């Protein structure tokens, strides 16, 4: 279960562990549940996330596509250089907002 905080309508989520196939189903439900409130921004704090596999990427992309439908923004913060590299390799950096 992720750590979730809210401030001025913006939702911060910190999964705190790897976003991989074994946790993907629960994490996806958690994100989609949070997105039902149609926040203007969902910030995923990647502190403690050492790995994202293809299933995990699918969850993040599903969240991106969902928030985009309501005009919101998905933001990643504190992603490791390796994970930022993975986003670039999979051409997701063109869509995701990534801040340090």
């Amino acid at each position, binding site marked *: 279960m992720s750590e979730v905080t809210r401030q001025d309508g913006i939702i911060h989520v910190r999964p705190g562990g790897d976003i*991989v*196939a*074994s946790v993907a189903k629960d994490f996806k439900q958690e994100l989609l549940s949070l997105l039902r409130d149609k926040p203007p921004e969902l910030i995923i704090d990647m502190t403690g996330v050492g*790995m994202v*596999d*293809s*299933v995990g*990427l*699918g*969850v993040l*992309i*599903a969240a*991106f*596509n969902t928030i985009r439908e309501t005009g919101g923004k998905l933001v990643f913060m504190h992603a490791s250089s*390796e994970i930022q590299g*993975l986003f670039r*390799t*999979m*051409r*997701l950096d063109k*869509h995701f907002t990534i801040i340090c």
Partner: protein
Amino acid sequence: MNSGESGRSDGSFAISITPGHLRICFSSTLENIDRAIEETKKFIGSAGMERHEFGLILVVREGLLNAVVHGNSSRCEKTVRYRLSSESRFFEIEIEDEGEGFDWRSCGLLEIPGITCVCGRGMAIMKSYSRDVRFNEKGNVLTLIMSNDR
């Protein structure tokens, strides 16, 4: 057991380690993928190869995921066999499932899907992070080669 070899088994997960080689055999569950990854991290650490960890772990994860979910259809009675060798200038990863295989020649699996697709990136990841990606004729044995510039 030979000198320099260690191993253990608990029924659904068996591991054998010899110098330069890690072999794991496990039943097809996502939890066993995580166990195999933890053992791989220990193996990489004991061999002093931590700087390769992210790419190596990523492609092994994708290969194991492919074998469990697509090859063995997540049927826990089916087994995945995984070997990681680091003897030469390259890492060689071999992953075998008990599925029917697939026609890897005619599949555009190495293409990166567009943003509207939430799946189908596993092969593209393996291709991007590996020097070579090969399948056997049937399509149930995957071999990945990665540089091991010590």
